[in-house]
């Protein structure tokens, strides 16, 4: 709006009036933005700053690095930290493997069929995470549906360990995260003009080459947006690992809950939050650098 060609403003007869107009408009826009900015400042920036401040004091209120020293001293902190990122990477990877073909299929279907199929993606999305996690527990446990069927079919003699362990957490979380990848990806795939693909094939590209050299690069912004959403949600996930992990898959969110709730050590809990935030931001930076500005412009420019 404000990108008015310069010559009109500077050489026009009513230049002053136009300039004042422009100034008034940008002030108006700032005014419109400010409630949002103030809200973000109060409910996000301030608490995070306070969190950081809290993490610098030990239990006796003395300024110290004790809350951060724990990470090196206690094997459990390192273990839960690694677990958190193992889960986040694995779930994100699985979501891409399953979600990309699904989104591609949806984007190629006729409109009506696509909306019917989308319902199957969105419906679980509207169901409570708690309910879906308990459902997976029923399906995956030792005497659950999957194991009972496999044993009855004679495919296995001993039940597979699918619940109360790492595998259970991964299965449950992948199911919950999938829509967060499919929806942005589908939206971006729908905007890719089919004429590009026709043009590529017209120029002699076989279908696979047309897909990989034309369609795939164009879908990258949507994929990147989905990957980032899924990855970040995974890092802070609580319910599914707590229920499906059998107390053995402990992620950082659970560790934070224990530290603040059970030991009532808010400084140590804050330090956990600060480290997770720093590592996440670092990873996002790396991710952005790796994929290049073009692919990540979706969240970079907005």
């Amino acid at each position, binding site marked *: 709006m404000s990108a008015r060609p310069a010559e009109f403003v500077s050489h026009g007869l009513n230049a002053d009036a136009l300039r004042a107009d422009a100034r008034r408009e940008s002030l108006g826009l700032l005014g419109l933005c400010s409630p949002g900015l103030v809200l973000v400042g109060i409910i996000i920036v301030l608490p995070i700053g306070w969190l950081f401040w809290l993490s610098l004091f030990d239990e006796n209120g003395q300024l110290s690095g004790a809350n951060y020293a724990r990470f090196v001293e206690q094997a*459990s902190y390192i273990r839960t930290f690694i677990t958190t990122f193992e889960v986040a990477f694995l779930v994100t990877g699985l979501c891409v493997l399953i979600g990309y073909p699904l989104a591609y299929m949806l984007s190629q279907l006729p409109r009506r069929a696509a909306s019917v199929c989308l319902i199957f993606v969105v419906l679980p999305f509207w169901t409570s995470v708690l309910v879906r996690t308990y459902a997976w527990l029923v399906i995956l446990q*030792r005497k659950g549906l999957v194991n009972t069927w496999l044993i009855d079919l004679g495919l296995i003699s001993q039940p597979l360990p699918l619940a109360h362990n790492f595998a259970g957490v991964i299965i449950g979380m992948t199911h919950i995260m999938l829509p967060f990848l499919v929806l942005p990806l589908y939206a971006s795939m729908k905007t890719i003009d089919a004429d590009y693909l026709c043009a590529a094939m017209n120029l002699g590209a076989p279908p696979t080459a047309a897909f990989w050299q034309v369609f795939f690069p164009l879908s990258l912004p949507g994929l990147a947006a989905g990957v980032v959403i899924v990855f970040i949600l995974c890092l802070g996930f609580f319910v599914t690992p707590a229920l499906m992990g*059998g*107390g053995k898959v402990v992620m950082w969110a659970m560790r934070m809950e224990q530290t603040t*709730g059970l*030991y*009532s050590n808010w400084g140590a809990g804050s330090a956990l939050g600060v480290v997770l935030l720093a590592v996440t931001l670092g990873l996002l930076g790396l991710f952005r650098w790796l994929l290049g500005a073009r692919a990540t412009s979706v969240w970079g420019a907005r």
Partner: protein
Amino acid sequence: MTRKSRFVSALALTGLVGCIVPAALAAETITVASWGGSYQEAQSKAFFKPTADALGITIKEDTTNGLDDVRLQVTGNAVKWDLVELGADECARGTKEGLFEKLDYGQIDKSGIDPNLVHDDWIGITYYSVILIYNTDVFGKNGPKTWADFWNVEKFPGRRALGGAFATETLTVAAIADGVPLDKVYPLDIDRALKSVDKIRSHVDAWWTSGAQAMQLVKDGEVDMASIWNGRASTLKDQGAPVSYSYDQGVLTADCMVIPKGAKNKDAAMKALAMFLKPEIQANLPLYIANGPVNEKAFDTGKIPADKIPGINSAPENVKKQVLLDPAFWGDHLVEAQEKFDNLIQQ
């Protein structure tokens, strides 16, 4: 899920009562938080309903996960409960943090209650035990009978679950498994107990965090043996699950009740608590679940049928077989031990 649905129905119920009773007659309402599941259902029939009827008040129910809930409400200045049930170890710890209101022993009659469980700001309410349960479909009659058996993975192969959120109980059990005689368990050698946990931890398939979860793990055959609270064990057996358990080497411990500091209906809560502790009300509990009354005089009321007594964990015969968890010891060591224990099992 049952927890939530019960809470909702309790809300609905109080809403309904609120409509029927005219505002002028509307009695006082207090909120009691306990441990949920089959235990709280029994407690509701045994304690809450008769007390509400006798005092003409409304008792709303909620569930708690323990001391951390109370701490958050009190330190956050948002106390929504008037009475909370906790483990005695948690009460001993909470006293040190100043989280509870002083109790009025002019109203509460403490005779018949073990003096170890009577304090300025907390008092025992029921007994529960941590016991060993095993699946008889897997082991027949020759399942693990002692904690040493539970720790013996060669003689008793199978899937195991232990309490993960209640370090005091699991550490006590671990000390017994390591060969400490029952009368020498307290004061507990925490480091020895932790070493004992270290030996079994790679063979533990699930660390349960609530009584309902322990029940579910055993009921669904997800584990073959587990530590479990006796009330949940007796409920499983009543439901026909293929399980066996006894009070041998159980950890007998008390639950306590407190009024969180800043509770809104303190006076009514005090009256209700005094009522819960009366022998006639206490004697109701064994009619619904195998947890023992904290007031010994309950056994003299004649309300408890003779054939029920051998199944009650605090009956004199059963007390002899168990070790008594020492709340005073845990008042000093609870947080430190819980953190060490978590660090160990999360490695």
